[in-house]
């Protein structure tokens, strides 16, 4: 599963870790995050994330 990086602040979403601050379980792919999920560090939406190569 790919990691995705926030274009604004550099936070990296790692599907292996999830996002406990928003109740996202480890193992959740980026694509499956809810549409209203936001960057836990700076608050921008999924549309401002880029896939890490």
């Amino acid at each position, binding site marked *: 599963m790919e990691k995705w990086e926030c274009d*604004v602040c550099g936070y990296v979403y790692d599907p292996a870790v999830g996002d406990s601050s928003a109740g996202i379980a480890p193992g959740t792919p980026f694509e499956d995050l809810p549409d209203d999920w936001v960057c836990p560090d700076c608050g921008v939406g999924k549309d401002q994330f880029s896939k890490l190569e």
Partner: protein
Amino acid sequence: MDPVQLKDKIYWVGAVDWDMRYFHGPTFSTHRGTTYNSYLIVDEKIALVDTVYPPFAGEMLKRIKKVIDPSRIDCIIINHVEIDHSGALPEVMKLAPGAKIYCSPRAREGLRKHFQGEWDYRVVKTGDELPLGRRTLSFIEAPMLHWPDSMFTYVKEEALLMPNDAFGQHLASAFRFDDQVDNKMIMEEAARYYANILYPFSGLVLKKLEELAALGIPISMIAPSHGIIWRKNPGQIIEAYRRWASGDWLPKAVVVYDTMWGSTAAMARAIVEGLASEGVDARLFKVSLRDINGIITELLEARLLVVGSPTINRSYLSALSPFLDDLAGLKPVNRLGAAFGSYGWSRGAVKDIEAKLEAAGLTLAGEGLEIAWVPDAGELESCRQWGRALARKIKEK
């Protein structure tokens, strides 16, 4: 005021804003004014670290001119785009058009949007160095402390950290250093600054403190972009940030309320009595009379926040809204919450306050307390008991 020397040939050349009373528009009351700190390093190359808020550009340039001719500035380090620090950049560039601007990638984007200047940008990242001659600058990116572009500059040979907004305080003073100003006042303002600006980034603050420790760099002085420079005891502010970001607490409670005809006020006072009877330092704030930034600051120490409102139009009084909105954005770390209020024929305030507290990340410490119309003697006693029960929750840990 003349330039003030921090280290050999490193000078404070910023400005003191004695009159600033609101920061970030109307959102942050700065009742002790502020300073915009910029620093001039005179070496084989001459570097300016950050500038000042535009109305103070002349004041800064006058100070720089007392040390060197500003046209001799070779490098300008912009740690942060916000205009209280970058605002005088166009004025400096007029005098030193050949100067190179060192900043993070996001700061370059931000500066271009702010000033449209076709300047010579040198983008830097963590670990990059800029040799000036006898001294070398190194850079540490610090995204979201407190903007995506934020960066720290470190002068290696002097163990001097220039972390921009981090470790700052809105405090105007005729003096520049921590050993010249009452320590209690500095810490009050540092706390107020942390609570109202950095609170939501506490997780990143802890990571950054770990990163600094792991780098193993000595820090003999911390020169932030606002307020007093930490030279006697830089460890004091690092330790305070660790405490605040970790959510450490004291047996203290903050009771915030407003009232229509006095019923919720009477409940609030009884709740404070109950908390105090268990040894909790309970502090009462009628929100419409008080400074919201001051209440938020109390939460840096208080374990418990109790919020009260009567029900009007099936919810809480709008007087509570600015406080509750601020709280939701600032997300205090590791805090308990509870709600209370009086009502007439329908309820709603307590439930809606509880939802707001939870959205702000607080853990509800117990069921809300609602009393119809006017509390009688027995109901006031149940308010005291409710306060005592909350006090025990605090001590439970």
